[in-house]
């Protein structure tokens, strides 16, 4: 079964399932493949019959990532091409509660810390810096420098307070200590741009990276001389990797090769499944935290395309389940 939501001429860059509302997702999208034009932030609910639009906001530049607050079900933050972070309230505002513009270039990643007692935001930018923010986005608390290429991904450790990982075009994965404002570890993880990274939810030392060299690598931070596992199969750059919230060794990756792949890196044959229902670049995916039975394979993907065939620009946001059920949100037509 496929549920489709269409939004003309928008290209999805990221999707995040709400940590509070099981059937709710946020999607960051951009016009013209994110190369030019405006951005749109969408909040969508999956219903019995389809996908309904809860709210959408326009932004004057492309939006590339979104994160839900871990403390307030109404709040979410998005990062944009103009170097800004915007704090949005689903409940009652038509403009952002706050806009913080400190990054000199595109903000490509935002993440909200999940550790109890800690409520921080992190952003990663093409200006090669990462910034940590208080949850009101008053001003950045610290700026972390060290990457020698654009930053594509910044993700809080789900275990270690004040610690996040970043992936960069300089080919390194870095682990940062926010309190000391220092880089604790720089791993030359790929001989190519790294577009995404994520932490294992069950082992504080395990991090996955996805890169332009078409491989996903799983790293044990205690010994980074070589990856624990190298997952090959994608035919183009990997856009995003995410660990399953349900299993220590399962992760998903999506790619410019139009596919989403599921992996279990503990197995000899790690590829579990290749989902090929997209006909465009797949840029974002997320596991649904709330549906443990359908679990592992409830994902959302967004994608966009460079292919300029007629006026039809497809951006798909799809939700799949293992049982074959597909909830598809197509942004565009």
């Amino acid at each position, binding site marked *: 079964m496929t549920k489709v939501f269409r939004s003309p001429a928008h290209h999805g860059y990221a999707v995040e399932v709400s940590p509070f509302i099981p059937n709710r997702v946020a999607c960051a999208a951009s016009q013209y*493949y*994110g*190369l*030019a034009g405006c951005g749109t932030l969408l909040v969508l609910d999956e219903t019995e019959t389809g996908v309904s639009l809860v709210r959408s906001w326009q932004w004057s530049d492309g939006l590339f990532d979104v994160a839900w607050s871990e403390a307030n079900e109404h709040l979410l933050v998005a990062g944009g*091409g103009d170097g800004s972070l915007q704090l949005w309230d689903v409940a009652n505002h038509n403009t952002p509660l706050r806009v913080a513009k400190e990054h000199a*270039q*595109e903000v490509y990643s935002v993440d909200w810390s999940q550790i109890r007692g800690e409520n921080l935001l992190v952003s990663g930018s*093409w200006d090669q810096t990462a910034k940590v923010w208080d949850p009101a986005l008053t001003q950045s608390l610290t700026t972390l420098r060290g990457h*020698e*290429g*654009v930053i594509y991904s910044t993700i809080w450790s789900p275990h270690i307070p004040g610690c996040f990982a970043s992936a960069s*075009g*300089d*080919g390194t994965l870095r682990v940062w200590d926010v309190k000391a404002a220092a880089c604790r570890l720089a791993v*030359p993880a790929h*001989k*190519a*741009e790294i*577009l995404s990274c994520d932490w294992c939810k069950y082992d504080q030392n395990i991090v996955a990276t996805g890169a*332009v*060299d*078409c491989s996903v690598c799983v790293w044990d931070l205690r010994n980074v001389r070589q990856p624990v596992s190298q997952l090959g199969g994608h*035919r*183009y*750059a990997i*856009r995003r990797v995410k660990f399953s919230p349900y299993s220590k060794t399962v992760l998903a990756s999506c790619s*410019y090769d139009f596919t989403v792949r599921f992996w279990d890196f503990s197995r000899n044959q790690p590829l579990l499944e290749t989902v090929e229902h997209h006909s465009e670049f797949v840029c974002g995916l997320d596991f649904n935290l709330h549906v443990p039975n359908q679990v592992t394979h409830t994902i959302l993907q967004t994608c966009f395309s*460079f292919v300029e065939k007629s006026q039809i620009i497809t951006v798909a946001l799809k939700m799949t389940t293992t049982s074959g059920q597909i909830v598809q949100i197509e942004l565009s037509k």
Partner: protein
Amino acid sequence: MQRLKVISGHLSPADHGPDDVVVVHGLRTAIGRAKRGSFKDTTPDELLSAVMTAVLTDVGLPPSQLGDVCVGNVLQPGAGALMARVAHFLSGFPDSVPVYTVNRQCSSGLQALLNIAGAIMSGSISLGLACGVESMSLRSIGEPGDLSSRMMDSDKARDCIVPMGITSENVAERFSVSREKQDAFALSSHQKAARAQTLGLFDQEIVSVSTKLVDEDGKDRQVMVRKDDGIRPGTTLAGLAKLRPAFKPGGSTTAGNSSQVSDGAAAVLVGRRSAVEALGLPVLGVLRASAVVGVPPDVMGIGPAFAIPAALKQAGLTVADIDVFEINEAFASQAVYCVEKLGIPLEKVNPNGGAIALGHPLGCTGARQVVTLLNELKRRGRRAYGVVSMCIGTGMGAAAVFEYPGP
């Protein structure tokens, strides 16, 4: 448009493809002043043999693994085809390995690398050695060969025999490059080279050569040569300003702001990435693009101003993406013109000096620049792009873009 470039970069998985042409290692001899310097009595086959042997020894590669050897040379008869094969055997290379020479004047050393790269790309070889060598002590530019008298009917053909110094004067006049600018550029070349030599930056790229030197009394002396002998740390603007024009009364090109006449050799081991990795050899650089373009012969020095944009376009890069430009300093006039024309920040140009301080052994220079460039990028310790370029007599420019992949 940066976003388009960044996203396009994600879509070229060839970025680190198994078919990339990569540089494994490169070395050069010191560069000696012609007729007075360290190599004034050394034949080019000896210079060449020294670098050929050292490059392979350093990486532990048996010469039998080489698919081909190409040597850039300008002044030896027939571009030194015989000299190169002699050097080959002096190096202990087996007869089963072939060798040939190439002459595209001042770009011969780079052309040798591009020829080897082309053979790798076409699939005919997997590994090759690209070299360049010149002894300007033992041979000089002179004898033009046999030419038709009809040459004089064609302006362009006639311009091909305009002396290089006059082409420099033409560039200076036509594009208003002042004597002061040229002298300042020459001074900076010496200062940068002197600094690099003092800091020992050239040590890792220079192979020591044991050779004989005939001293003033006519006695042979065995010497070990490991330092460039053309660098003059004491050069001053006032000193340069006093020099008389070397090519034309009232001109601005002097011995001080032109390249030095020199002896030297360089060799670069090049291979297909898959073959290089299979042998466990390191990757020092990746060849990303190259271009040779023609320009009017009477202002041949402007070649880099056309070749560099052509190569950058191929690589999908801009001047801003390049960390280091090695642009041959045939003459300060043409080097300054090209740098200004392309809007290259001066600090990116020849950070360790160029041919005005180091010397310009014609056939060697291109290979020498590749060695110097990649060592400089390696010293900086992060992934970066660099460009090697030079002007070419009879009116051309060549350029190649290399990537240092990072430590």
